[in-house]
């Protein structure tokens, strides 16, 4: 059985979980891991890894400017803006 570090995953996902949530999520993930382990047991050494379920290739787009940019409209949904910039809580660098 895989040892899942829920707190680590929560940090990566930027989620704040209570102790109770951590144990509930932990149990859910354990069950999911059982299924994953079953799949892992299948011998796939002769199978090409599947990058995409669709059997098609990427369409390419000509290098042309086709978008009009409505900054004011887009920024209406932002909590804070100034001088055309989006403002977010200070990121320590």
């Amino acid at each position, binding site marked *: 059985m895989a040892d899942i570090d829920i707190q*680590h995953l929560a*940090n*990566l996902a*930027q989620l704040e979980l209570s102790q109770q949530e951590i144990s509930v999520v932990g149990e859910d993930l354990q069950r999911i891991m059982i299924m994953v382990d079953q799949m892992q047991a299948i011998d796939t050494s002769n199978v090409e890894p599947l*990058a*995409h379920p*669709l059997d*098609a*290739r*990427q*369409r*390419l*787009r*000509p*290098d*042309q*400017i*086709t*978008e*009009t*940019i409505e*900054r004011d409209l*887009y*920024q209406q949904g932002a909590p*804070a803006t*100034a*001088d*055309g*910039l*989006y*403002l*977010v*809580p*200070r*990121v*320590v*660098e």
Partner: protein
Amino acid sequence: MSWESVIGLEVHVQLATNSKIFSGAPTAFGAEPNTQACVVDLGLPGVLPVLNEEAVRMAVKFGLAIGAEIHPYSVFDRKNYFYPDLPKGYQISQFEQPIVGRGSLTVHVEGCEPQQVGITRAHLEEDAGKSIHDAYAGLTGIDLNRTGTPLLEVVSEPDLRTAAEAAAYFRQLHSLVRYLKICDGNLAEGSMRCDANVSVRRVGDPELGVRAEIKNINSFRFVEMAITYEIERQIELLESGGTVARDTRLYDAERNETRSMRSKELSNDYRYFPDPDLLPIELDQSFIDAVAADLPELPEAKLKRYVAQLELSDYDAAWLTQDPEVAEFFEAVFAQAGNAKLAANWVMGELSAALNKAELSIAESPVPAATLGELLQRIADGTVSGKIAKGLFDTLWQSGGDVDTIIASEGLQQVTDSGEIQAMVDEIVAANPDQVAQFLSGKDKVFGFFVGQVMKASKGKANPAQVNELLRAALKK
């Protein structure tokens, strides 16, 4: 016991497309904040990326130029991390199946044999936005204009052993992408950014030491300085009994030191997986062949041709081929002048000095290549002397004009009429009996005085070889 440093570089090359890698928004530098970020770049719900064909073509072009294997099948992955200037919460990149495989680049370090540096891979990805930390109290400003700009990340093997080699490699890469016209090469605007992985080990130790990664160095000089500092820091640490921590560092050019980035202390866990929004890239051989047919002469081939065919020195050839615009200018001058050495001397000497003084690039030269070529043609065919040509060059630089017209109107033709030169020689010899006596008593140095006097009398226009010959004859009488 002595130490050896091991260096590998990851260089982000910003591809010079008109539009973003996955959207039709413009990529021009310096626009008002957030006026070049469309809904796809902002990662709004429901949008889908569509791959720019030109970005793919540029990646293939680069791969072919470094003799790399072009993978006909490659995959885009999501690299997951949270940062405010990455609106989707992931960067679209290539992880396990990059478009360009293993290749190499020939690097020239002054005073050393040319060296082959291995390139592990090059992959396509999108750039993130920009964070502005200092302008707003307690807040960070986010400009997403750069978001989605196509990047080619070029990863070298840990083949580099000195800071000078690393800088030379970066320079060579810069030269190559400009030849290929896949990047504008503007380091100040961040068009090429370099991360350096640096470690040290005892000479002879087969194991690599623990490495530090220096992020985002954006000049040739800083690459050399940052790596030099980092090597010394690690050696000092190890010699005083400490250990090198594997960390990510920033180079502070003002203090000339590298510092650990606290924000990257948490170990990276990017959880790459294939991006379900993008299908795999499949390239037909005809696509690759078409790109190959379109490759220009590469800097290394050009350098070798200059040495072999034009009989230029290694130094001159390297100087002239570093920048494709310089090489193009030189070739246009040479085509007109017909004399490679003369063309090289003038481009590297007179022209380069004038451009430096005026702070102009060669493309902005007030004297066009064809005009300089005509001027050199007139030196080569003896119409004007080298000295007169320099004055003429100044005139062309200041006020332009046609070479032959100026020569005719200013009467600058070299005097090659031996009768005319003879008359001047006779006059100078007659006017300076003391110096004649000195010369005859064995003071050979006085000969220079006579040459100078005759050239002065001819206002610099007498053919120097003829002056020499006629003077010797006259003085021996």
